[in-house]
């Protein structure tokens, strides 16, 4: 257990890097890490390197696993299940099926067209950006394993719950009719088995591709985190997002929902907020709001569902995120 703890601290939390950057800031820049400027420079360098390194390794490993679950395969697997079991499986598969946000529409059409219930498709769509394997490990690296596992569990519960409600609301009539048109053919060519070499090449391409897209989000996120960490007055943070303020979760969610950023960019912001005494639930609500719902993805989704269903979807997910936020604030002390 001690060995595991040590590995966790050194590999995930990278405590060696923390000390190394502290040395750099103190001896090369001649700044005190405890000072305002020194502290934010330290946070910026340490967090950027940590997140980018972890991310590269994680995306590579995870893409390898994901290469076993192309959407076509997920569709086939899901077709064999019914009821709430299908929702749970949909949410779980959402965590491992690769798909960039642009693919959400063809995927929605593909699932619906294959006769999957709308609720199962929504469970999948909600869990996919919200919970993925990379975020699980990164959250563990920042907040510890208990929080990471709790995050994944509530994320899946949210996806299953929201999907089930949408499925039960008979919302099929609010889906654009063309979605149900029979497809001309089904493109099952991705289904052919890949060799290990092809999977490794795929994993490498994904790691390079994703990193080249998200690095800027990470740097901006870490920059904001550094500002929160050292420059925004404690009194202001406590007044707006403090644990004792009933509206803190509400505010974090409402601000987070329209925003679009990668989960990796939002993590350093959440990290800095928690370090300044903001409730874990408030920080998680912000993170979930940013990743699960965003204006660009809603604009895309609007092309296949009518406004009414879009509103139901946004409403349920937003309320779910707030419930999770309040629950974590109430019981979060059990995790960290």
């Amino acid at each position, binding site marked *: 257990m001690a060995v595991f703890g040590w590995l966790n601290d050194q590999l995930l939390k990278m405590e060696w890097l923390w000390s190394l950057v502290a040395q750099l800031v103190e001896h090369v820049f001649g700044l005190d890490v405890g000072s305002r400027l020194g502290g934010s420079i330290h946070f910026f360098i340490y967090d950027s390197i940590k997140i980018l390194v972890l991310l590269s390794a994680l995306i590579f490993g995870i893409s390898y696993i994901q290469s076993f679950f192309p*959407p076509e395969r997920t569709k086939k697997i899901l077709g064999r299940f019914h009821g709430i079991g299908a929702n749970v499986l949909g949410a779980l598969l959402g965590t491992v099926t690769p798909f960039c946000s642009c693919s959400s529409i063809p995927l929605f059409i593909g699932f619906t067209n294959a006769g999957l219930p709308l609720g199962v498709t929504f469970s999948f769509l909600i869990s996919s950006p919200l919970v993925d394997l990379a975020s699980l490990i990164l959250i563990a690296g920042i907040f510890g394993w208990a929080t990471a596992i709790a995050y994944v569990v509530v994320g899946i519960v949210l996806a299953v719950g929201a999907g089930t409600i949408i499925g039960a609301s008979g919302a099929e009539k609010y889906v654009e009719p063309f979605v149900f048109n029979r497809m001309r053919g089904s493109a099952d060519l991705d289904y052919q088995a890949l060799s290990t070499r092809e999977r490794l090449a795929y994993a490498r391409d994904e790691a390079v591709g994703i990193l080249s897209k998200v690095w800027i989000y990470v740097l901006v996120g870490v920059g904001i985190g550094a500002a929160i960490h050292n420059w925004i007055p404690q009194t202001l943070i406590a007044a707006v997002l403090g644990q004792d303020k009933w509206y803190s979760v509400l505010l974090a969610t409402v601000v987070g929902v329209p925003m679009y950023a990668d989960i990796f960019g939002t993590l350093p912001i959440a990290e800095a907020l928690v370090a300044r005494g903001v409730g874990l639930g408030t920080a998680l609500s912000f993170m979930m709001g940013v990743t699960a719902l965003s204006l660009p993805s809603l604009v895309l989704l609007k092309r296949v569902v009518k406004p009414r269903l879009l509103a139901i979807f946004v409403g349920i997910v937003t309320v779910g995120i707030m419930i999770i936020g309040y629950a974590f604030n109430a019981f979060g002390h059990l995790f960290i």
Partner: protein
Amino acid sequence: MVVKVLGACCGNCATLMENTRIALKELGIGCEVEKVTDFAEIAKYGVMSIPALVIDDRVVSSGKVLKPKDIMKILEGVAR
């Protein structure tokens, strides 16, 4: 030969488009690459992840940003 790239939003689709053009040029095939961005149209091909490559109405790849040499291999296979 009719070559289409299905996909609309992120940079991946533009990259596939560009790589396809390079492959066609490399093989000396003088045909244009058509871009399909309408989701109803994309759905007709049964594609669930974009970008996808369609040659003569057959989906030859989906959810992958193929490199020019991969596309050349596919094109040579079709020509044969």
